[in-house]
């Protein structure tokens, strides 16, 4: 595995970690959404990097990883649309995007 690929994978791992750091302690729902986007991106990076070094037909490079990334993009778009719509609805309800004030789903 080349240096570049390793680097990309490690960047991807660290980026994912950064995303989790954003998800856990932040309070703004939108920031959390953005952190999730970063995590998805980290995954995309890993997919693209690995897909390049997998043996394909007559050389390196399987395009399957790109297809997965395409799906991830689509799902990310769906997630963003629904997530932001939820945040909007939330804001109307509570006048806030702070997830600390949301404890409605308790038993």
């Amino acid at each position: 595995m080349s240096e570049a690929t390793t680097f990309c994978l490690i960047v991807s791992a660290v980026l994912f970690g950064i995303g989790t750091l954003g998800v856990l302690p932040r309070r703004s729902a939108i920031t959390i959404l953005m952190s999730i986007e970063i995590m998805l991106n980290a995954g995309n990076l890993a997919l693209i990097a690995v897909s390049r070094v997998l043996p394909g037909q007559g050389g390196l490079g399987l395009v399957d990883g790109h297809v997965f990334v395409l799906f991830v993009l689509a799902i990310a778009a769906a997630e963003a649309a629904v997530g932001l719509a939820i945040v909007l609805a939330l804001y109307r309800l509570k006048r806030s995007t702070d997830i600390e004030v949301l404890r409605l789903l308790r038993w």
Partner: protein
Amino acid sequence: MDALLTPACCVALAAITAVEAKLYIAGIVALVSGLVVVMHRNSVIGALFLVLNLLSVAVMFALLDAYFMAVLQVLIYAGAIVVLIIFVLMLLNVGREPRGGPGLGVRLMALLLGLAMVFALVRAVRSFTPGSEDGGVLTEGYGTVSQLGEALFNQYFYPFEVVSLALVAAMAGAVLLAKRYLED
């Protein structure tokens, strides 16, 4: 006239640096901007840095010969998703996040978990070996639109359709959720 010089500088820079070097620069930019997204208290600034993060990741895509995906990354993420996020931020006029989040315990746990995650992933990366190290040469037309299209409409046809269905469902759901009154 610095705006006019920027592309020229970029071209000059591109001519003299190797792919790896560019990759390292883009990666470091991605990491730093990602950190800013997570850390900055102002969501709008965070969102703008998210754009930077996405663009640098797109650059990495392009450097990894995935030109089409790089373009799509910019088009969809930067062009649509983050614009949507910023739009909502501006619509709700969300300013700086108030001080005082969760307690130290949660923060510590988040840090620990994040680090554990990173270590697990790095370990996994270390143990990863692709099928063939040598071979070296990329296949003809790797990452082009046509190759992707072939894969998408033959091998991945049904997943593709399912994803399109998911998108439609998400759109309908988003419209329904965002409507102020359901009677309208």
